[in-house]
């Protein structure tokens, strides 16, 4: 699980071009959207592509996305349960 969380943090920084962040800067329970990492609607769509590409999970309902992208902790739990690759 810790490996998955680290991997997720690296992907988020890389995919979403969070230039000023390192893996250590992101706590497992940091809010990804809003005040936390300050991600926006395009980032949410990009995370949906990442789930599909890296873990074979297809999210089609944007509201489902909202519930999953709360924090790295929640995201990692969801991926561990639903991943197909």
């Amino acid at each position, binding site marked *: 699980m810790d490996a998955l969380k680290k991997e997720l943090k690296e992907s988020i920084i890389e995919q979403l071009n969070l230039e*000023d962040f390192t893996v250590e800067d992101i706590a497992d329970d940091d809010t990804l959207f809003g005040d936390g990492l300050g991600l926006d609607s*395009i980032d949410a*769509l990009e995370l949906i592509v990442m789930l599909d590409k890296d873990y074979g999970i297809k999210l089609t309902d944007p509201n489902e996305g909202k519930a999953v992208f709360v924090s790295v902790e929640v995201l990692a739990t969801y991926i561990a349960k639903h991943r197909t690759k």
Partner: protein
Amino acid sequence: MKKQLKIIAYCRIKNNAISLNGKSIITKDKDLSFSDFAKQIYKEKQLAYPKFFKMDNLCKLAFLTSEFLFEAAKLDSEIIKNTGIVLSNKASSLDTDRKHQDTINDKDNYFPSPAVFVYTLANIMIGEISIRHQIKGENAFFVSEKFNETLIEHYASSLIINRKSSHILCGWVDVDNNNYDAFMYLVAEEGSYNYSKEIIKNIYTQN
């Protein structure tokens, strides 16, 4: 109805060098890639605007050029709010269009990226500048084979004559593979330099 317009300030970025009002202000190693050059400028100017790193090269170039220009122009925020933006280039957003195309060419690895797709429009650079400076004025983006100072002069003048905006940010911002070129100038009824399409053409070709 024709009005004599003036240039408030102008900025050019090409070959990893920046000049403002005709004076060279920054020169970097010519071998740096544009993204590395842009990142260095961002850091040196301490811009603290994380959205910058999400932008494609075209928007980064337009963003940086407008940063130098607005800093030099020292306009009142009420004026900035209503400034018109009239930009142009040759390659539109093709530099990023090719990247998006690459994500859909392979049907077995078909993952179009929203963060890339959103930059497959050249006028997004006008949006990025508008967001940064809270500009809600007139917008237009033109495409031409070469920098067409006459077209831009016509449109900027008509916006001022028709009282749509008092100040117009004009220019040419082009990125195509490894080549880039940005030239922006602010035009209004009052300013430091005389404005005509001939003067602009001279400045553009000499800088």
